[in-house]
Structures are given as C-alpha cells and as structure tokens.
C-alpha cells in the first residue's frame, strides 16, 4: 500500500569504507550519531534492549582491508579485527599459537552468532570472553587512529590506561605472541614434552552453553624444572566488570614454589584484589570467591601433576 511515512522512524544510513582511515574520518565527521559495526551481534541486542539508541549512521568495518585475515608474522599471529569468531576457531596459526583464545571462543554464544560475531567486536565490547584469554596470552592491539597506528597491550586498552583508548579508535588487529607460552599445551602435555609452560581458561555461566559469563579466568605461566613459577599472567572477568590482570597474585607467585600455603595466600590475594561485577544473577562476593577458587584449583592441579 502506497503511503507517506513522514514522521515514521528513519532507517540509519550505512557506510562501507574500504580503508580504515576513511572509516575513522566518517566517525569523526558524524561523532555520536555514528557507530562502527562489525558483526552487529552485540549492537543488535543493545539497540533492542534500549541500552543504546540505534545510530543515524552505521559505519560497517566489514570491507576494511586492514582488518581482514590472519597472518603468521615474525613473532606474532596477527588477527584482523574483522575476522569472525568461527574463522578464528578453524585457523591453523591460531590452533597452533592461540589455544587459550580458541578455548574461549568455543564458549562464546552459539554457532549462529559466532558465524557473524568478530574478534574486534568482542574486544570492543570491553567485557567479551576472549579478553581474559588474550590478557593471559599477553596480546597487543594494533589501533587505528586516523593516519596513525600504534600498538597497546590489551590490558591498557580495556582498562583505559592514559591515552590508550579514544572514542573513535578502531581496533585494527590483534597481535598474539607466537612463542612457546602461547602454544596450545594442556596441563597433561607438560610432563610428556618436558615443557614448562602451562595455561588454563575457564568460563562459568548460568548453564552449560550459550550463556553470559558469571566468571571467566585465564592463566599462563612457566614452571621451571625445580618447581619455581615464572612469567605468570593471571586474569579474570565476568558480568559487566572490565576484565583485568591480577598483578598482586602474579607477583606473589613469581619466583616462588607452589605449596598449599602459597595457594591459600593467592586465594586471599585474588579475593581482596579483584573488583568483580555485581548484578541480579550473582553478587560480587560470589564472583570473587569463584575466581579465586578456579585459579587456585588450577594451580593446585599443576602442583599435583
């Protein structure tokens, strides 16, 4: 039926730049009225839930060359921000060096969503389940800010360290160290291969799959032959809290040997240090306790193995 919808709501305008700088300039131009979109999976729920109004201008990052593909470069696996979670999962370089990330991705949302959702969008959400894994892996982000490019540790970016994150920034790529620390060894392999690196990731939600995270933890570290912990990186997230590293627990562990007394101390440290989220589904006390429990139980298993 032909009719005029003069007052009816407008659909947003969609821009599909091919260059990152072009995208950035568009965002500069339209400011608050514009928004970058990658897979759109998170934005869609935010619009529907009234968390954010739909913007007047959608800047799609889908066709931006710089954000595509996964490359194994010297020392890094470089993952384009526009790569979907499904693509990450089946990528050979990531399977080799991104074990924790893949483990994290397997527990994000459901297959249909992972088909659209991107790694860049997951990180930009600031609460994505990939973040604790990437923090433990010591990943860095390549940030597009106009003509400039710079790399920042993912922790600085998420936590909003001085100058690290600006509103119009585009995450260009995710850089994962292609070193022994990131190779996909499980605890069980440690003995077999006489390799000292260990890593773990765990997400707890309100059901077994397709669930928002209550608590997500990750850890990477090295255990020297005489049982001393080194280069340890621990992280925690879950709910609306920004994921973070747990530096005090890391400090207490590094250079020391695992013992039950040490684990008690670590448990206590995490419990008092971690600033957990609080919502209708879990209190912050629950989240702290569960994070401390999960990390110390993983270390205990390491100690026993």
């Amino acid at each position, binding site marked *: *039926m032909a*009719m*005029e*919808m*003069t*007052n*009816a*709501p407008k659909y947003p305008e969609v821009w599909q730049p091919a260059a990152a700088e072009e995208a950035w300039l568009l965002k500069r131009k339209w400011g608050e009225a514009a928004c970058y979109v990658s897979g759109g999976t998170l934005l869609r*729920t935010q619009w*529907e*839930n009234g968390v954010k109004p739909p913007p007047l201008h959608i800047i799609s990052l889908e066709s931006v060359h710089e954000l595509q593909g996964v490359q194994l470069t010297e020392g890094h696996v470089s993952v384009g921000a526009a790569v979907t979670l499904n693509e990450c999962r089946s990528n050979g370089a990531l399977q080799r060096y991104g074990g924790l990330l893949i483990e994290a991705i397997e527990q994000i949302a459901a297959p249909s969503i992972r088909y659209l959702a991107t790694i860049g969008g997951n990180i930009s959400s600031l609460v994505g389940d990939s973040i604790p894994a990437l923090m433990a892996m010591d990943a860095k982000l390549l940030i597009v800010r106009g003509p400039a490019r710079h790399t920042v540790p993912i922790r600085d970016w998420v936590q909003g360290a001085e100058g690290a994150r600006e509103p119009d920034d585009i995450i260009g790529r995710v850089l994962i160290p292609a070193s022994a620390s990131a190779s996909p060894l499980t605890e069980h392999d440690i003995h077999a291969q006489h390799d000292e690196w260990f890593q773990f990731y765990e997400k*707890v939600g*309100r*059901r*077994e*799959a*397709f*669930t*928002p995270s209550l*608590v997500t933890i990750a850890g990477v570290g090295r255990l020297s032959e005489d049982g001393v912990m080194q280069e340890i990186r621990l992280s925690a997230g879950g709910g609306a809290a920004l994921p973070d590293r747990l530096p005090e627990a890391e400090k207490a562990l590094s250079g020391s040997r695992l013992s*039950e007394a040490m*684990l*008690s101390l670590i*448990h206590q440290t995490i419990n008092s240090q971690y600033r957990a989220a609080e919502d*209708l*589904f*879990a*209190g912050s*006390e*629950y989240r702290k*306790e*569960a994070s*401390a*429990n*999960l990390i*110390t*139980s993983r270390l*205990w*298993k390491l100690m*026993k193995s």
Partner: protein
Amino acid sequence: MLTRGERTAHKWRGRPDGPAKVSGSLTYLTDLSVPGMLYGKVLRSAVPHAFILDIRTAKAERAPGVRAVLTHKDVPGLNRFGIVNPDQPVFCEDRVRYIGDAIAAVAADTKEAAEYALSLIEVDYEPIPLVDDPEKALQPDAPLLHPGGNVLHRTSYRKGDPDEAFGSCVHVVEETYWTPRQMHAYMETEGGVFVPEEEGGLTVYAATQHGFKDRMQLARILAVSEESIRVVSSPIGGSFGGKDELNVQPYGALLALKTGNPVKLHNSRRESVRAGLKRHPMKLVMKTGIDAEGRLVAHRAEIIADTGAYSTLGAPVLNFATEHAMGPYRIPHIAVEGVSVFTNNGVSGEFRGFGGNQAIFAVESQMNRLAELAGMDPWQFRRLNLREAADPGPLGQRILPTDCLPAVWRSVADSEVWSRRRSSRLRDASEPWVKRGVGAALAMHGSGLGYGIPDPGGGRLSLTREGKLEAAFSFEEFGQGVIATLELMLMERFRCSADDLSIVIGDTAKVPHSGSSTASRSTTIAHMALSKLHPQLSARMIGLAAKATGKPAPLLSTGPGGIWLQPENGKAERLITYKEVALLQEEELAYETEFHFPVSPDPVIGGHYLYTCAAVAVEVEVNTLTGAIKLLGKHHAVAAGPAVNPMGYIGQIEGGSVMAQGFTLSEDALLQDGHYKTENLDTYIIPTIRDVTEDVTLHAIEELPQDDPYGPRGIGEVGSVALAPAIALAVHDAVGSWITRLPIRREELMGAFPGILKRSCKGADDS
C-alpha cells in the same frame, strides 16, 4: 522399561506433525499472512500500579498508515476477561495494576507504523504505592488492588488435631520454602490473525488450549453470538498452560471488526514476558512431626501464592497446591491453609503441574529432613509412610483405588541410579572439589480439573463421504503429540492403517465440545469417548457391509482400507473399502458422545478422583568451587496406565523433566519494583541440550486395576512434578546443604578452595 526406538512391545510411531516441525517448514498460525492484512500493536502500561488520569489518542489517530486506535471506550461488550472470574480489563479505564496491562491498541498498514503510533499515545498516570510482595499485600495498610481486597482465594483443610499431636512427636521439622516465577518460554510467542467474515462474523486464528472457551470469552467482549465466531487454534508452538487464558485475541478481534480488515498481532518476546502468565511463586511454611518409629504423626502447611494482578486460574491453582501439600502419605493430623494474593507482580496463572510442583518440592523436602532425623534411609522412610491403595484421597475424598505408589516406589528402589547412592561422593581424586550425590522423590498427581469445576468431555467419530474414519475432538496440538496418540488409539481399535484416518482438532467449526487440553485429561477423554463410539461405528459399518455383500456379519471385521472377511479356515480378504461403505447410504455415519470427566462422589472442591503416580531418582554433581550443579543421570517411574503412544510418552516425561530442571536450577522471571528484569531469553535462562543428561531411563508402569474404565491416564505433567525435591536431596547427599529456595543458589553450595582442600583431605584420611 520404555526406551527410545523400542519397536517390540510398543507401537513406535513418528508423529505426523514431526518432520515439518523439526525442519522448520511448518506454518504456525502466527506465520499466516492474508491479503489486505493490517498489523496490530498493544500499548501496555508504563508503570505497574497507578490511576489513569487521561488517555489521549488524537496524535496516534492522525499518524500515517493508522487505521484504528482503540481504548476502553471501543469495547462493545464486557471490557473484562478471565477464565474463572473475568476481572482483567481488556483495556484499562482508570487504573493499571501491572506492567502488562493494556491501555490502547492500534491497527496500521505496517508494523512500524503501528509501533510509531503507540509512541504517540499519551497517558497520564498518578502512581499508587506498589504492592510487590504478597505478605505486604496482606497488611492492613496495603493499597487494595481490587474492590474485594487483596485476597483472591483461601483454602483450608483440617484432619485430626495437629496442634496437639505435635506435642507427642519425637522429631519435628519446621522449614520455609520458596519457589520461582517460572516462565513457560514457549517457542512461539502469543499472536494470530483475525479475519472479519460476512454478516459480522469473525475467524480467529490464534493459539489456545480451549477454543470453545476463547469463543465464549470473545463473544462476551464483542457482544456478538458465540456462533458468529470461529476459533482455529492449532498447531501451536508450545503452551504449557500459558496460552489457556486469552492474551492478544481481544485486541485482534476488536481491531478486525473495527477496521473491517484482517489484522495480525504477534507479541515480541519482550511483550510476551511483560504481559504473559507465569507460574505462581509460592512461599510454603511447613511443620511436620514423626514418632519414634519414624511414622508421620502431624503435618501443617501454610501456602502463600503470589497471583499477581488478576484472577485467571489463581484459585484452582491454589486448590491444587493445597491438595498436594501433604503428599501421598498416611498422616493422622493435618492442617493446610492456603492464600492466593493479588500483587502488582505480573500475572500468575496456569502452568504445567498447576501448583503441584511447588507443594511437592516442599513436602518431599520435609520427608528428607525427617528421614535424616529418624536415622533412616529417605526412601525406606517413604515406604513406611505411604498411603494404601484404598485410603481416601489427600482431602479425605473417595478416589479410584490405586496401587500406583508402591509400584513407582519399587521402580526407584531397584533403579541403577538409586543404587549409586551408596558409592563414594568423590568423582575423582584429582578434582576433590567435585562432589556427587543421589536423591529421589515421589508424588501422586491428580488428573482432570477436580470436583466442582465443569469438566465436560466428549468427541465425534464418523465415516466421511471420502471413506475416512474421522475422529473429532476439541483438543489442541501444542507439541504434546495428541494427533499421533489419537491415530494410535484408532488404529488399535479399527485395526486400520494410518491412511484410513482423519484427525480433526483445533477448530470450533469442526469439532464437538471435548473441553480443554489441560490438566493431563485429553488422553483419558479420548479413551472414554472412543470406547463408547468405536463399537457403534464399527457395528454399523459391518452391518452395511454384510447387507451389501451378503456375507455373514460375524465373519466381518474392520481392517486396513475397509471391511475384511475372515472365513473359518481360509485367508482373510478385503470385501469392501471404507469409501464404498460410506456411499452405501445417503447421510454420513457419525456418532457423538458427551460426558463429564470422572470425579469423586464426595463434594470436596478441587479434589480429584483419578491420580497418577510418579517417582524420580537423580544423580548430580556439585562443583564446590562455583556451586554449579550438573545432572548426571535420571530414572523416571510413571504409573499412568498403558503407554498408548510411546514416543509421545517419552517426549512428555523427558520434556517435563527438563522443564523441572530449569525450575530447580536456573529459571526465575525477576521483577524489580514491578518491572521485569529478565526480559528475554538471554537473561531468563532455560536449559539447553548441553544441560540435559543422556543417561535417562523411563519405567512406564502400564498395569491398571482390573476392569478400569478410564484407560490410559495423561502424562503431560507428572514428568515435571517431583524432580526438584529429588535434586535437592541429591545435592544434600553430595555436599550436605539443605535447599529451601529455588532456583538453587550457587552461593549456598560453594566453599573457599583452601577449606575445600582441607575438608577433602581430611575426608580421605578418615575413610
């Protein structure tokens, strides 16, 4: 044991509606589109409790594409609905009582235009203090939601003198239990298409569990005759009780008649959460005492149900909870008091299990605690106290004697899952924080609506002119498999093939009154109706065939494709097809029957006559690092007569059980200040297939008392009624915590890792 795919003892028949549903190709009523169709939208209240001072629709009426804007002024008949007591406004006049209350409705050329028009309707509210807690609602200073006050319904049952009897008890357990506001979470949200017909008629294509009841309610609202309305209501993408009451039908009907155009309405999930029914949250305070031998002596239960803003089926739900609050046990002294209270917390109503699930969780939990105090095994404790076959029913009424309880009790006692109870709590020494436990619970669950509520049944059986054996019932197909069940019943009786059959349901223009598809009643109604109608139609067809072929009637029988001759010593042959029989005479061969669902001879309101029994044993794993619970294995025992449709039977028990798992572990529609905080399925968490254990056995106990006239009992609810207390016992077995609140809170089951370690090392040293 009834297992998937069993083909020997049972007829394993795929459901005719299955492939289309699984492949997504099935057209639900909310998928229909008709030419010239408008889109309807309903404006719901912005606040949970307020007076309406003014409603201004002028701007919306002028918006582009808008064809009609309706408010209370546009309702020609009764501006109310409600199955039992119509007290819910179709459109609120001067007051809103919950966040889903309807104030106006719009029909427009597009959905977007309708939504936009809603945003232009201005409503002035004057807030009334919120009543968001049933106990607060009972305080003398609470604002009253209705002229009759905040009490919808009270129940009371007394036997003996419990107050005195508690004095003689050796052990007494006193505890308070809470159950959640569970959502039906059907796949298809409420909606439909409403088509005006000639001479003021109306066809409603919208899901319901009782087409004739919708027709009656809509006629009352529209001020037209019932006969001018046709309700087509199947197939349905799930209901579980949630679509028994009217939902969007009044708006679709009013808009269609007003505009003269077909109108489609379909709730978004958010609208469905906001306006739709939920399971009654209940607080149950129980005190139960036993003697030195562990025999139950006295039991007291107080039930407070949060019924939300309007009546719908709140009163019968409370009756049902009351009837199930003492369990199937011999207890000489009993007092049960129930109250169902109006609040501004949404609307509670019918939900699979109908108030039984809440009461059974509480009373079975009491049994577990008492068994522990008595130093007895919880299952032996139950055996000692079970009622006997000829005992009166829970409310003292006469019931059909049944031996189903010892049968389900025995099934659990002998089950593999229950035998795991004695083994170690520890799964694996490498993860000492994971604890395992086993629990079980049982229930005797009433079928039918109960004494005092009209519960008419009936059906029609005919041979159509096309030669189909046609069964017509006013049942609905909402996923329970009623079509396959009816086919199997007919194939068994006529020994015909599925191709000979035509099943007609879900259309008031084509079916007789058989009552509602609810309360586990359809299978029994169908059995009773067919037991009466099949011999009539069969004899008539054989008589006609005998006359036409000259063969003796005693040698003839119905079979695949038609009437067969079985000579004394020869090969059977088909003499005449059903179609040929149909054409042997002028009028259609059709037989109808009407009767009432069986009720107790004793006038006890809400009391049942037929009961089914169910028991379930479950093994769980508790991760004490996080408090997460995982179900490892389940054994369901159900005594409900013959499994007419084994696939449907398994589906109902498995489905009911998973629904009960959600009720126990994760589901709760949270409200804050009268507003839903779980507005979609991303925060309202139902189990997925990954939460469902594959280790399930189902023991269908099919024997019925001799000469039982009522046949197979319904099993739509019993799979869901006893799982929660079984899980609660299993959790206790695993970690020692007693559960009082559902869904189970993880905080209560977790420890601090260093402490967990110490305890488990100590445990290992002790053993």
